[in-house]
């Protein structure tokens, strides 16, 4: 067991226990605090998954802003009078728990068996950008730019693969090949291509997967419409919340 495995199991244990405490706690303040714990643990898990920006956003937005909103509203209410029995034994409660357990069973079964089936199916035929054949082994750290790039047009062809002619030309320019006219075999060609690709891409550093640079490049080019739509949605949410507060019966009702 590596340190990653130990971290995952510890985080998963804390996440599931705190999630259960969120729904089975009578006091909503404690529920909110356990939800904050659950979200922080998930944020830590995002760090181990190389999603650094998402992890920090999770901690600031969820465990910070959203939880402050929840706790503030809970504090606003008088909750002492609430004595709700959560798990009283009745046919309806039994049916609810059974339904949730059934859903859980379906989801766990399909995800566990499905991944195994996909792994078996994909073994041997892997294209970049699809699920890697060995799903036990994540694509780690530095990955080639061809996978990160958004579309075929955007990708810089020369960094992916240079043709043998280009490679020879490039190496001639750099004085790498002493005999430019010499006939090269296919194996030597392949070696040259590899060498040229390596030297050419040395100039620009390959971005790390999950870095803020790669994420923001995707956000502001491929998802730019969704990004703008989300800003419009936030505006609508702000207007809606203000309208609710100022309406008849709201907290800031005016005459």
């Amino acid at each position, binding site marked *: 067991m590596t340190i990653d495995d130990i971290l995952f199991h510890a985080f998963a244990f804390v996440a599931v226990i705190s999630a259960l405490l969120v729904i089975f706690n009578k006091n909503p303040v404690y529920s909110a605090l356990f939800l904050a714990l659950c979200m922080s643990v998930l944020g830590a898990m995002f760090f181990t998954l190389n999603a650094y920006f998402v992890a920090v956003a999770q901690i600031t937005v969820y465990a910070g802003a959203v939880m402050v909103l929840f706790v503030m509203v809970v504090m606003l209410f008088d909750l002492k009078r609430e004595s709700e029995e959560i798990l009283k034994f009745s046919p309806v409660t039994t049916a609810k728990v059974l339904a949730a357990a059934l859903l859980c069973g379906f989801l766990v079964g399909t995800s566990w068996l499905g991944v195994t089936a996909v792994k078996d199916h994909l073994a041997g035929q892997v294209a970049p950008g699809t699920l890697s054949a060995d799903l036990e082994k994540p694509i780690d750290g530095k990955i080639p730019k061809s996978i990160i790039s958004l579309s075929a047009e955007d990708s810089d062809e020369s960094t992916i693969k240079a043709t043998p002619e280009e490679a020879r030309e490039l190496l001639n320019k750099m004085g790498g090949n002493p005999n430019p006219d010499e006939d090269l075999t296919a194996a030597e060609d392949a070696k040259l291509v590899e060498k040229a690709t390596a030297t050419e891409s040395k100039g620009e550093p390959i971005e790390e997967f999950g870095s803020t640079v790669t994420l923001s490049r995707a956000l502001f080019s491929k998802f730019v419409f969704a990004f703008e739509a989300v800003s419009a*949605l936030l505006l609508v949410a702000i207007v809606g919340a203000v309208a609710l507060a100022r309406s008849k019966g709201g907290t800031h009702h005016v005459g």
Partner: protein
Amino acid sequence: MATVMHVGLNHYLVLSALLFSIGVLGVLLRKNAIVILMSIELMLNAVNLDFVAFSKYSGNIDGQAMVFFVMTIAAAEAAVGLAIAVAVFKRFKEVNISYFEKLKG
């Protein structure tokens, strides 16, 4: 046992399934509107974990962009939902979900 303890994509999917089911159970069992909103946040978080895990194991950054959007929408949903809860509490002095049907205008 060794394969079960060695973490792969399916471990993240199973954890996410567990969290999602706990969220569903919370929505079904609780009457308090605030705890129901918290359970919905729990479900959204489970989906976020799925997105990030798939993003890591397929080497595609799009999943993380989706998580960004889910977070934004979750924040907006929490703000509006809590505003409605406050309106219900002012009227009925309780945030029981069964009072929501009496809201109008």
